[in-house]
């Protein structure tokens, strides 16, 4: 049953991400990207990470994608401004290189270079990780990265305002 759900979600995620890069209009690309993110959130649920699934939908599919759609609408692009895409040769070599990259990654994963074999089969399904155990770690072991993230967000806010504003 779990394998069936995984297969369906993986199929949706992969086909939607192919559609993201093959659509001519940026708005449909953005919509397919939302579909990809929602299916990845469902995979997080399958991996016993419900809190991250919620964060994924709220932050990625919500906030970031709204920002994308907002900018696409703001730029008010017409069809002719997209122009021709890259040359045939460039596309061919792009696909070739990505195919080689995929083969390399798959080989590394199958060889167990990440230590997947040494840790063995997962003994028992862990309890779903809600906000509490994550916060426990975030405010003790990872307190410094957490504070750095807050500074990063502040810098991003200031940077975005400075760059996008016509005249300060």
């Amino acid at each position, binding site marked *: 049953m*779990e*394998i069936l759900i*995984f297969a369906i979600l993986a199929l949706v*995620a992969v086909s939607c*991400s192919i559609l*993201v*890069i093959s659509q001519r209009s*940026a708005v449909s*690309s953005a919509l397919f990207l939302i579909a*990809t993110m929602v299916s*990845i959130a469902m*995979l*997080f649920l399958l*991996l*016993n*990470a419900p809190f*991250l699934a919620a*964060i994924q939908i709220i*932050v*990625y599919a919500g*906030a*970031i994608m709204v*920002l*994308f759609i907002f*900018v696409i609408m703001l730029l008010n*692009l017409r069809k002719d*401004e*997209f*122009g021709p*895409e*890259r040359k045939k040769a*460039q596309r061919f070599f792009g*696909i070739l*290189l*990505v*195919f080689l*990259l*995929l083969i390399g*990654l*798959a080989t590394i*994963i199958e060889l167990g270079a*990440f230590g997947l074999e040494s840790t063995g089969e*997962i003994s028992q*399904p862990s309890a779903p*990780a809600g906000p509490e155990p*994550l916060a426990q*770690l*975030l405010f003790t*072991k*990872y307190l410094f*990265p957490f504070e750095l*993230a807050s500074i990063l967000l502040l*810098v*991003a*806010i200031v*940077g*975005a*305002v400075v*760059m*996008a504003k016509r005249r300060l």
Partner: protein
Amino acid sequence: MVSSSAYMILSATIFAIGVLGVLVRRNVLVMFMSIELMLNAVNLALVALSRQLGSLDGQVLVFLVITVAAAEAAVGLAIIICLFRNKKSVNVDDFNLMKW
């Protein structure tokens, strides 16, 4: 239970599609979306390995990656708006001011 390798293969596939998007597209917005796709693929791998190792450290890392992605999207889209205001285009081939 679905093995971690299956999740890793799926993550590698989505990452490769993101790389392909950056390589073959010229619309800077779609290239930016491909970068988001790659970040998502890495998040999936991190959560899968976190389950495999039975520790929550990977999930905390995903949390921080999502924060960085949000900051990156805000700054990146501001840069795109700036570029469009100056060049009246979203085609990356027009953005060659810093090429020598």
